[in-house]
């Protein structure tokens, strides 16, 4: 016998074990106990691990990355300044933005731009969250807590600006928690695109 090999003695079966009957009775007791606990037991002692899915839904974890939303300013316009950081950061290249200038009489004219088009192809998206990381304005978020509603049409998964703006966050608001300093506010740094930093 090689060194280090320890031979264990095989446990002999007792007569009760060999006849199976008491062991089966024990097993039946386990099964029945489980059944009664999960069927008639008090609610907090039940150990049922599944839910009837479409009727009952589980809460996703708080940091779950769901479908995107565009946060709004106080006046309902998008916070997005069309800087293209998100579409640049996107490894799946699923964000398409067409930036546009505000009208010359708008106080924001010269300070920032806005997205004329903001399209996310949710089918192409890999839900990595890089766009949220990249956004300097807290304009794009993935805190809706929803996954995509299914559809048989590919076009339905191209979410435009209007759709993204009108998705609420998990807390039900369309805004973001960070304050926004609009041009003209006393807190606004007052730096325009032309002036530079």
């Amino acid at each position, binding site marked *: 016998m090689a060194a280090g090999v320890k031979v264990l003695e095989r446990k002999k079966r007792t007569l009760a074990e060999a006849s199976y*009957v008491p062991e*089966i009775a024990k*097993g*039946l007791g*386990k*099964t*029945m106990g*489980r*059944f009664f606990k*999960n*069927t008639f037991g008090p609610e907090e002692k039940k*150990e*049922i*691990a*599944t*839910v*009837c899915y479409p*009727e009952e839904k589980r809460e996703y974890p708080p940091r779950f990355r769901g479908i995107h939303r565009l946060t709004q300013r106080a006046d309902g316009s998008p916070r997005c300044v069309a800087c293209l950081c998100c579409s640049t950061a996107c490894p799946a290249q699923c964000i398409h933005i067409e930036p546009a200038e505000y009208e010359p009489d708008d106080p924001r004219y010269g300070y920032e731009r806005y997205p004329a088009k903001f399209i996310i192809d949710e089918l192409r998206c890999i839900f990595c969250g890089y766009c949220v990381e990249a956004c300097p304005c807290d304009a794009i978020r993935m805190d809706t807590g929803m996954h995509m509603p299914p559809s048989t049409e590919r076009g339905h998964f191209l979410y435009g600006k209007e759709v993204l703006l009108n998705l609420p966050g998990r807390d039900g608001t369309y805004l973001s928690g960070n304050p926004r300093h609009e041009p003209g506010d006393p807190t606004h740094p007052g730096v325009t695109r032309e002036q530079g930093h």
Partner: protein
Amino acid sequence: MDISGHILAALLKILFIIAVVVGAFAPMLVWAERRQSAMIQDRVGPRRAHIPLPRGVVGLFRASLKPMEAGVFLSFFAAGLAILTLVLMGLFGIETVAGQDAETFYLAVIGFGIAGVLLRLGHKLHKGIVDSGGKLALLGLLHPAADAVKMIFKEDFTPPKADKFLFSIAPIITVIPAIISFAVIPFADTLYLEYWDQVVPRDGEIIATAVPMQVASLNVGILFIFAAAGTGVIGAAVGGYASDNKFSLMGGIRAASQMVSYEVALGLTIVPCFMIYDSLRLEDMAAWQHEHGWWGFFIPPLTIASILYLFAAIAETKRIPFDVPEGESELVGGYLTEYSGMKFGMFFTGEFIEVVVLAALAVVLFFGGWDVPFLYRSGFDLPGTWELTVPMTEWVITDQFLLQHWAVLLIQVLFFLFKVVVLMWLQLMIRWTLPRFRYDQLMQLCWKGLLPLSLINILVTGILVLLWT
């Protein structure tokens, strides 16, 4: 009774059995197997099949919730008030309160108590329906119905090179004998037609038209069940052979050898019953246990026989832990591999009916059949001789409680069905507890385990019977 009366009675009994076994027990078993197994395995299980109720009805239910709640409260309050009045009357020796004597208050306690419990149940049911948005799911009981509809409308596929005739007839060969076996099982004491709304005298001969409460009273009795169950093996074997599939063929061969082997064991395990009950007729066996007031299970040789019978019976129905003919891990689905749609459904139903038959047989052989403790032909006769007067009234409760003939029979039938349900449930629990045997272990258990043990049991029973008589 003339011949047409006999035919009518037989037809009624057949209808009753088919309604109970195929109409109630088989779907119940499907439901139990799905939902209860889920509960055992910490799942919710299938319970989503439902009938959507119209909006108006749901609104009505919602509107009735508040009044029902109030009704529950009022009923229990009234019952409590009546109890309080009774206690006060007893304490201070008052004869009547508000012109009513104690008997009225007793009735009030019972009436309001029952009303309260019923209202409570109704409230719970209505609330469940309202909460789920008007879906009548009945605990998932509608799921077997949905399953059946699915099976009927599913494509009925026959393999191109299969033997069409044998392939189609195999499920029928499995189902029919299973139902036929029920013909000889007695589900109540003899019905005396002329006495149906009277109390039958407890002792002595009764001169009346006797209708046995079983479809056919055969003198071979239990042997008929074995003959019918033996036919069941042909269904599985033929189904496996006709499918033109090697897995099916293997399954069919396994089914045939397993069922033939266990047929032998099954027959021998219950020979002690014949020796003790001294008859092959199942109605005589039930009557013996009724007369002696001693169920077979509590007679030592029969206790062993009943355990051996349970093993052999589960193996005979090819259910887990003895389901090697199906053996999905080795044989895909065994003899069921090529079956789909309602043909598969018939195999499936046949298996469940066999479970019911074997449970019913076990009840008749070992658990007294239709015998209810302390219930006799004339009604209940509880142990001892005593009388109890309900305080403050002239009501007397005694150990004797006479019942009309129909009520006695009804209680017997219900108790018989209850015992069958308990045994079926035990079989289900065994199914969900034990892992599958290997094929050689299965055969060893039969030929080296059950067979010698049952032979020894016969010997011991024979010696005991000789000593006893």
